[in-house]
């Protein structure tokens, strides 16, 4: 009983640790807050059902693999839906920006610094959203999640060579778009 509680607590901590970044990743891919929430929910359930019995050190890679599969499924579904809507002559509305992103944070002591950072963040997020999906995933998994080549290849279901290519192209594009972001 105690071990079940321990494992439940471990699982809780793990999900609490990854859920925000997972949501952001899904949102970069879908450009929709609601769709991103749905994908994270599906990924959490599927991960818990299938992989919670696996060793703790494998959880991160397995969770992101599940999330990535859910994102790919979403892409396929959206592609088909858009095709049908286009065929019916009803173009789908573009998802609007998340209104929460525009809400001011009143708790910040230095408003000008905060605005600057928000601006930089907005530029970065827009640039990441504009990347092709595979480059976006390779970049976020390697640069943000700190996954190595092998782990990223496993998550993305491709070769390590492909990961290297996608990642370097993403870094090159982002550096070009975000000149001066580090200053």
């Amino acid at each position, binding site marked *: 009983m105690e071990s*079940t509680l321990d494992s*439940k607590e471990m*699982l*809780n901590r793990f*999900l*609490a640790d990854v*859920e*925000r*970044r997972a*949501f*952001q990743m899904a949102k970069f891919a879908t450009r929709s*807050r609601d769709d991103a*929430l749905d994908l*994270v*929910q599906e990924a*959490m*359930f599927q*991960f*818990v*059902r299938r992989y*919670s019995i696996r060793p703790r050190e494998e959880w991160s890679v397995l969770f992101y693999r599940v999330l990535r599969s859910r994102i790919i499924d979403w892409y396929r579904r959206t592609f088909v839906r858009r095709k049908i809507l286009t065929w019916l002559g009803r173009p789908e509305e573009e998802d609007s920006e*998340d209104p*929460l992103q525009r*809400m001011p*944070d009143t708790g910040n002591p230095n408003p000008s610094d905060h605005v600057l*950072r928000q601006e*930089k*963040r907005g530029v*970065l*997020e827009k640039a990441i959203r504009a990347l092709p999906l595979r480059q976006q995933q390779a970049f*976020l998994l390697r*640069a*943000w999640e700190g996954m190595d080549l092998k782990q990223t290849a496993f998550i993305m279901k491709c070769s390590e060579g492909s990961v290297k290519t996608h990642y370097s192209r993403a*870094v090159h594009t*982002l*550096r070009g778009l*975000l000149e001066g*972001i*580090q200053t």
Partner: protein
Amino acid sequence: MNPKDPEKLFLESVQDLLNQGAEDLGSQTERRLEEFRGRALMSAQEKHLRFFPLRRWIMVGSFAMATLAAAGLFFWLNTSTESLPTGQIEDLEIITSQERLDFYQNLDFYRWLESKEIRNRQNGKEL
């Protein structure tokens, strides 16, 4: 790697901004994520409590049925083409006949005798 490597600096600032974005999701999103986590954990607990879920039984049953059907089909196809050679039919006749067993033991001799008589008759005709 050199600590002043521009790519490293770039990646650090990107990580910093991304982390900031992940911390600043808004209370509504945070609540939803917490809610999903709670439900996922509940489903994990239910999974531990169920010994062998119905779906698993259905899968095992289907697999057993498919195996049985495949085995049945295999044996049926095999027996229908090759399992009744003529020798076995002859054996069946021997087993069910009312003749004495000595007759069948001497059958070769009778056949030889018959063929010899036929040959003699043919030679006689020729002569």
